[in-house]
């Protein structure tokens, strides 16, 4: 106390400070408030808009907008509820059936569901959502993308043509059909098991069509401006109360929510960009739960009183990308040499403080259909050395010609997360004669080279996950040859993998499908389009009195489950 008094008096602020401290610690209102701190807050509530890839915006989508189906609850591990990815439960849809002969899904919709605006949920809301996705009017058409991944009929690349016919085709046809007010049918163009997984993803959430139409204008018939800047009207557990971009997002519990009003009446989602500050505010007890702490910060909280770390293994991973179009990574022995030169256990220990495990595949191990493949890699410098010689570069001789290829890129904004691993890799690879330089780059610049130009030779990444919980979804996203493969960042192309993927995609029998997928995973681990490094825990730090954390594959915090 003496120190405090001395300091404040020295600064001449004592009386002012005393008055202000009282003002700022006024008791909270009687309603139950959850204060969540994140790196950022939603930038948009339009999932087809400019912020579809923005994690905080996705948190906004998922807490405000309701899906048709969701995963059922699974086991609870260390106080964290995991989901059972083999079981779906109804959300806005109460039940469903699939007719193999016509490839048609029939969804029976829940009755008596009210939106935040008080509108009753009907089949029209589902039709509106699909019609909006098919209109391709958003700046980044995620709704279309997901429908096409699930082989919904007529959601094809032909829609993008600039011809009058294509524009006409962008109107919703009978592929999504209203049978009655509470029955909807969705037709697929081919058998595809991804229908239900896709319905859980943010780009397939259902808007309140009446409220959306009320805010449509002639220039913006699908209310993109409204969802980008004002609100996302839906039937979810929370309704928007106020929103200041880059600062704060406040939601209040939806009193009409069909599962019952959530425990917290109000959620304040605040942006605190410095993770050290998020940690400090949590420790003083003012924040309820915080997102995106670094592994080191999480470790520092282990012994903090009244703080719990919640989370577990799901689909957070770190991997190395080696571009097939960049020499010498076109050489299979070179790729394997790198896989054997990564000090997996040291990465787990020094970068993740033990809160990670080696990733032994290229599909998250929590996903149904994952197999531990025969090809496995461990830190084995002797083997790496031998493979390097086999590749034609004994002790790294000759690799100096590829200085640019050995620039290890990673997202500069994630230096605290990726930096330690990048440095470890650099040291171990250099010891083998592989001349690695570190090349952190701003996220947008990296995304441009990785996703669009696809010319990044060598990079370390930890921010991508297949949000559809299925090996085929992961493969289509990362590994299948374009144009069917969507986002093949390493220019990988393998006829065998493509064939197995095609078979799995249309195979109706689950066990047969899993056999194809298992074989495909063997191909991947042999060819190494990515070198898997670790699977790490997805973690949130919170007050110990807070319970009910549920981990979702989208990795966003779902507020409705939390309670004290």
């Amino acid at each position, binding site marked *: 106390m003496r120190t405090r008094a001395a*300091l*404040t008096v020295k600064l001449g*602020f004592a009386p002012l400070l005393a008055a*202000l401290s009282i*003002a*700022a610690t*006024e008791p*909270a*209102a009687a309603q139950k*408030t959850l*204060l969540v*701190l994140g790196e950022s807050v939603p*930038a*948009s509530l339009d999932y087809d*808009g*400019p*912020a579809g*890839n923005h994690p905080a915006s996705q948190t906004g989508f998922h807490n405000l907008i309701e899906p048709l189906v969701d995963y059922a609850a699974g086991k609870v591990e260390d106080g964290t509820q995991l989901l059972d990815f083999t079981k779906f439960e109804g959300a806005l849809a109460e039940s469903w059936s699939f007719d193999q002969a016509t490839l048609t899904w029939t969804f029976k919709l829940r009755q008596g569901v009210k939106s935040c605006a008080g509108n009753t949920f009907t089949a029209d809301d589902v039709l509106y959502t699909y019609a909006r996705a098919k209109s*391709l009017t*958003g*700046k*980044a*058409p995620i709704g*279309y*993308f997901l429908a096409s991944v699930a082989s919904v009929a007529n959601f094809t*690349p032909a829609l*993008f043509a600039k011809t009058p016919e294509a524009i006409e085709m962008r109107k919703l046809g009978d592929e999504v059909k209203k049978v009655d007010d509470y029955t909807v049918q969705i037709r697929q163009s081919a058998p595809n098991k991804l229908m239900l997984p896709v319905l859980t993803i943010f780009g397939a959430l259902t808007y309140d069509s009446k409220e959306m139409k009320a805010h449509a204008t002639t220039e913006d018939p699908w209310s993109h401006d409204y969802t*980008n*800047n004002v609100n996302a009207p839906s039937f979810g557990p929370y309704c928007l109360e106020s929103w*200041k*971009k*880059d*600062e*704060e997002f406040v939601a209040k519990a939806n009193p009409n929510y069909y599962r019952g009003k959530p425990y917290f009446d109000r959620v*304040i989602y*605040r*942006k*605190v*960009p*410095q993770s050290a*500050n998020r940690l*400090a*505010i949590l*420790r*003083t007890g*003012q*924040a309820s739960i915080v997102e995106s702490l670094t592994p080191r910060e999480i470790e520092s909280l282990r012994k903090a009183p009244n703080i719990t770390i919640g989370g577990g293994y799901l689909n957070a991973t770190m991997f190395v990308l080696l571009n097939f179009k960049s020499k010498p990574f076109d050489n299979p022995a070179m790729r394997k040499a790198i896989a054997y030169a990564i000090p997996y256990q040291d990465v787990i220990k020094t970068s993740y403080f033990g809160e990670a495990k080696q990733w032994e595949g290229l599909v998250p191990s929590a996903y149904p259909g994952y197999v531990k493949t025969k090809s496995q890699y461990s830190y084995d410098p002797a083997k790496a050395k031998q493979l390097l010689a086999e590749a034609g570069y004994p002790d790294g001789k000759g690799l100096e010609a590829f200085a640019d290829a050995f620039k290890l890129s990673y997202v500069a904004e994630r230096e605290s997360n990726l930096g330690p691993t990048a440095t470890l890799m650099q040291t171990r690879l250099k010891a083998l004669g592989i001349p690695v330089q570190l090349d952190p780059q*701003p*996220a*947008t*610049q990296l*995304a*441009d*080279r990785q*996703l*669009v130009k696809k010319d990044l030779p060598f990079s370390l990444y930890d921010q991508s996950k297949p949000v559809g919980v299925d090996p085929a979804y992961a493969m289509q996203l990362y590994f299948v040859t*374009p*144009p069917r493969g*969507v*986002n093949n960042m390493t220019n990988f192309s393998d006829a065998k993998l493509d064939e197995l993927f095609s078979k799995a995609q249309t195979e109706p029998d689950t066990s047969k499908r899993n056999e194809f997928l298992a074989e495909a995973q063997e191909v991947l681990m042999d060819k190494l389009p990515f070198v898997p490094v670790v699977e790490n825990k997805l973690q949130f730090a919170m007050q110990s009195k807070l319970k009910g954390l549920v981990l979702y594959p989208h990795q966003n915090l779902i507020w409705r489950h939390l309670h004290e």
Partner: protein
Amino acid sequence: MIGRFVLKRLGIAFLQLIGVALVVFFMIRMLPADPVARLVGMNASKDAYEQSARALGVDQPLWQQLANFLGVFSNSGQKGLLQGNLGVSWVTNTPVLTEIRDVLPVTLEIVTYSLLLAFLIALPLGLASARKPGGIADRITLIWGMFAGAQPDFWWGLLFVFVFYFLLNVAPPPMGRIDPLLATPQAITGFMTIDTLLQGRFDAFLSALHHLMLPVLTLVYVVSGAIVKMVRTNTLRALQSDYILYARASGLPEAQVARYALRAALTPAITLVGIFYSVLLSAAVTIEVVFTMGGIGQYAVRSILAFDYPAIQGVVLVVAFVSLMIYLLLDIVHAYLDPRIRY
């Protein structure tokens, strides 16, 4: 006369802004990345990419993009710069002007209070140390200058958070401009301290002041040293000048002599404050980040990292405009303070 001078300067400022707009337009298009990538993300199929590029207008030839930006021969159906429209942010889809209207006052509020306070502290301290070189005031100035300049402002900011919030708990948590449990007042001027008073929200006013405490303290701490030094040096020089010697020889009271010296020392000090003001508009970003004040600095960094062309263009133009206005104001103040200056 001063009226003509101001008009002339405004005319030049307009041309300068047009120049800045053109330079920025071309410079950002030389950045080593494509903004569409961020937008389409994982959904980067060729069709989706083209669709997004069309939506942003970057599929058009460069001259057409420039025409759309300026609002001459535009084919976008939107107003351009010359009609007072800075475009729509590619990250949030909100008009850039609206976003800047929200973030600029945040920075102006911190910087204005900080520089005002710094000036009020630095002036007497500088005068005192000049009048008694080697005295207590002089020594304080020296030690302060050495300390404050030894570490970057964000480091001091984080240290102040640790000491005043985490250890002593006399400062609020570094999460914005007002207690999150209080309703945010409606923005009128954008200055939280003014808006809360205008709406009679005394609780929110105190909270806003409380939240300004640490960011202002940090900036005052960091910038005052330089202003004190400037005042000290110029007062010392003035005290040794012929006219002060003459004043003293004429037997004028010491207080009046000090006032003469002060006037001479004031001009460079005000110039320095003016320079700090325009520099801090963008350089206060570190303070904004540490204390979660969503000001224009943070907005600029966010826009640059996301390659949000309209937002970058908007920020640069607005900051340039404010800087030009500050320099104009400085010239007018100089004319008032220094009778030798004639326009």
